[in-house]
Structure formats: C-alpha cells, structure tokens
C-alpha cells in the first residue's frame, strides 16, 4: 500500500493548488462549529417560547433529567450536530470527483494505468485523499463545538451532548458516510466530464440526511444511540454495495474503454 500513499501525496499537491476545493473543505466546518455556539450564547438567558415547549412535549418526557429549557436547547443543538454529518457526506464526493474528472480532462489516466500500480492501490490513494480531510474537518469542528459548549452549556446539557450517540455519529457513522460519498464520487465521475455537474449530483446525497434531521426538528422523532446504531448498519450495507459498484467501474479496461 506504499503506492496508495504516493497517490495520496500527489492528490494533495493538486488540491492545494485549487482554491475552490480548499474552500469547500474549510468553510463548512468553521461555520458549523461557530453558529451553534453563538446560538447557545444568546439563548442562555432567554425564556423558552411556550410554542416550542408544546412541540417538544414528548421529548421533555423522554429526557426527564433535563429541564424543559435544556430540552429545547438540546434539540436545537442536536440539529446542528447532525449538520456536522454533512461534511463527511459532501467533502469526499467533491474531492473524489475533482480528482478523477481532473485526470480525465488531462488524459493522465492512460499513462498512469500503464504503471505497475494496482487499481486497488490507486483507488485507495484517491479515497484516502478524499476521506482524511473530510474526517479531520468534521472532528475538528466537533471538537471546537464541544470546547465552546463546555463554557456555555449547563452541566446537565453538556452531559447530554456527550452521549454515546455522538461518539457513534462521529467515529463510526462519519467514516461510513465518507466511504459512501467517495464511492458515489467514483460512479458519478465515470459518467460525467464536468466537475461542477459532478458536485451538484453529489450534493443531492445530502438531501436524505437533511430530511432525517428535519424529522427531529419538527418533533416527529428523537434520535437516540439505538437509532444511530441502526443507521450505521444500514450505511455499512450501502457502503458494501457502492464499493462493489465503484471497484467494478475502476478497472483498467473499463476506465479506458467504457468511461465517457
């Protein structure tokens, strides 16, 4: 797998030359980490809107160790932390399609595939280059958020925010999202020749994630560790499916004769 690292390094050299991609990687985590902290800061001393309380009445019952104010805050913060999961969904597909479509535009795939690299090593290198920045930014954003929350949240709320659900989300679910996202990037890149189009199609995969987040915002479901564990299982199955599809497309012969 030494070759995968060689590929990884070269990918990074190219990414550092491209401002647009760098912004895609760096801007969302900064925004996502700061907005909930600002919100917490201003909501700290505000009385809770009775309408909100009514909407989340079932959650108040489910979280007896939190005060009603803390419940409302908890649900709102959960929305944002769920949004953090957009990073492992969006960043890898963006980087992967940038990288693969870039190779197609420059026609560098043929000389590259003439080298003795194994296609799995090549794919692994490109996957690493897409996944590492996505996970790092996600984790850093979550870290900044937790550090801020330590000062702004009540002790009970902080404890609730540190629930295993989030560890599961960031250390299991996020990597699974990354793999899904890269594999979708590979599949899209084999069909599309325009980086922007690929990004738009790739962007569509955040919609299901957002929809699930919305369900909670409107008081329909409260996500728990169990729901997240189930989601991880579903994701793992999806990952296996798309990896199969991606690697069957990522063969010398297929790349050179079947890709558009």
């Amino acid at each position, binding site marked *: 797998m030494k*070759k995968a690292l*060689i590929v990884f390094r*070269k990918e990074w*050299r*190219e990414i550092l*030359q*491209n401002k647009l991609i760098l912004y895609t990687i760096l801007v969302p985590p900064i925004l996502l980490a700061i907005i909930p902290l600002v919100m917490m800061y201003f909501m700290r001393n505000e009385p809770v809107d009775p309408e909100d309380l009514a909407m989340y009445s079932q959650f108040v019952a489910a979280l007896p160790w939190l005060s009603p104010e803390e419940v409302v805050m908890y649900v709102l913060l959960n929305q944002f932390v769920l949004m953090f999961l957009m990073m492992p969904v969006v960043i890898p597909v963006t980087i992967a399609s940038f990288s693969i479509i870039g190779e197609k535009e*420059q*026609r*560098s*795939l*043929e*000389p*590259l*595939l*003439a*080298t*003795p*690299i194994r296609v799995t090593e090549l794919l692994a290198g490109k996957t690493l280059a897409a996944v590492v920045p996505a996970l790092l930014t996600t984790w850093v954003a979550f870290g900044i958020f937790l550090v801020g929350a330590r000062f702004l949240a009540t002790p009970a709320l902080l404890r609730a925010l540190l629930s295993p659900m989030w560890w599961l989300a960031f250390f299991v679910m996020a990597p699974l999202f990354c793999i899904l996202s890269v594999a979708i990037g590979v599949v899209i890149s084999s069909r599309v020749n325009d980086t922007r189009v690929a990004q738009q199609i790739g962007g569509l995969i955040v919609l299901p994630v957002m929809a699930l987040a919305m369900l909670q915002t409107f008081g329909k479901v409260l996500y728990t560790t169990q729901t997240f564990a189930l989601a991880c299982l579903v994701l793992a199955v999806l990952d296996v499916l798309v990896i199969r599809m991606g690697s069957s497309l990522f063969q*010398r*012969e297929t790349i*050179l*004769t079947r890709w558009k």
Partner: protein
Amino acid sequence: MMIETHDLTRRFNGNLAVDRLTIDVREGEVFGFLGPNGAGKTTTVRMLACLIRPTSGTARINGYELGRDNQQIRRICGILTETPGLYDKLSAQANLLYFAQLYDVENPEAQVRKYLQMLGLWDKRDEPVGTFSKGMRQKVAIARALIHEPRLLFLDEPTAALDPESAKTVRDFIEELKGEKRTIFLCTHNLDEAERLCDRIGVIRQRIIAVDTPDGLRRSLFGRQTEVQLAEVTPAIVDAVSGLEFVAHVKQDGNRLRISLADPDAQNPVLVEQLVRAGAKVQYVSEVKHSLEDVYLTLVREEAR
C-alpha cells in the same frame, strides 16, 4: 525477441479494430508501426502495454506472457500516449517524481534530474507544466515514459500534434535514444519520420499488410529499377533491352528508360554493355528510388480494394 504476437485481435462491440496481428519485434530495433487514422495502432499499443485485453490471440513481451505476467510487462515498458496527459497544475519535477515513485525507481530525485537536464528543462523544473509550450510538454511526457529506463518504449504518434520545429526536436531526441540499446515501437503516420528512424516498418490497416525494412518494402512492391538516360531512344534499343532474359519490364519516358530487374549490381554492367552494342549513347545510369510515400500509398490502396 522483444515482442512476439500471434493472431492478436481486438474488437470493440463487434467491430474489428485489430485483426489477427502476428509480428515479431527484435530486441534493440526501432519498429515503425505505420497506418492511417483508425488503423488500430493505438489499440495495439494499449494491448501490448497491458492497458486493455485482447479479444483473442497471444503475445509475449520480452518472454513474459500477456495476460499472465502483466505486472512484469508494465515494469519494463514505457509509453508515450497520444496526448501528453500531464498534470497541468503540478511542476515538471512533481509530474516526473510521481511516475518515478510509481515505477519504484531506486533514486527518483536523481533520475528526474537526469532527464530534466537532458531535455533542457531543469531551469523550469518548478513551473507548472500547464504553462509550457506543446513541444516542452511533449518532452516532459517522453521523459516520464523513460523515467524507469524501460527496455521497451512505445511512442504513439510522438510528433503528430507538434509544430515542425518542436517535431524536429522530438525526432532528434528519439534518434539519440536509438543508440541506447532500447527497443522502440513507434506508431506514426508520418512517412519521413518512419523512414528516418525505423529499422523495420509494419504497415497496418486492421490487419498487418507488410513488414520489412524501408528498402525491403520498396523492393518487394516495385522490384528494383534502373533508369538510364540516353542521347536518343530508338525502337531497336528498346528491343535490345527487352530481349535480355533478366529484364522483367521496360518503360520509356522521353529519352529515358526505366528497367525492372532483380539484381542490379550484377546485371547493370551487362545491361549497359548491351545498350552500347545497340548503338545507344549512355548519359546517366541510376537506381530508381521510390519514396516511402509511394510504397505506403500503394499498399494501403491495394488493401482497401
């Protein structure tokens, strides 16, 4: 043998791109692969460089069997593809270093330096290749194909997209490579290039039409011809020449005769003697050299019929 193929065939969705190709390329030779657009040159190179699989047929590269020993084959082959295929945003050095590492070159930095210096690009090593001229980009691509010192080098139309001056630079460089005991498989539809660089030429149009040295191709197509220029050509002189048993064919063109014969070195003296005896005043005797273009066009046209 560096390359031996037997009935190598490739179809794309049922369409024949390469049909039962059987050729041998010797170690150290420059083999020209000559054919019109769409003749199957690139497809052949892609098969031999283990990029795409043949539909049927077999090939050995330096004794390694295509399909079974692909990794070994890739290690000893270098390829210059039809388009340079460089990473435009990366420097010349970064481009070459990447491939040196992918080919497990022992001392990649030194090897990259060697080729950048050899091609006069060392001063520009840190500039992105996207800013380079076409000729310079082609040089970087050739350096990349050579970075692991391959024993077999495929060059797919190395000068087709270049202006005459860059084409000349690239051609001169290929000529230098000839000295290095490396086998070169050169696809081209440029006849001067083939003539100047190649030891042998294979003419292809889906199938192989002919394989020989440039001179051999001429000879097998047109035989050998001697042209004599006389002060005056009379019917008696033509009869005398036609009567010689080794003369296959005589053609008159003004005061010149074009005579086809098998072995000019031995037969020209007899011919001249006979001419003089028939009363001819011989002004010039010379060998007719058909251009490779004549040979090529004749071959390809015959094949199309």
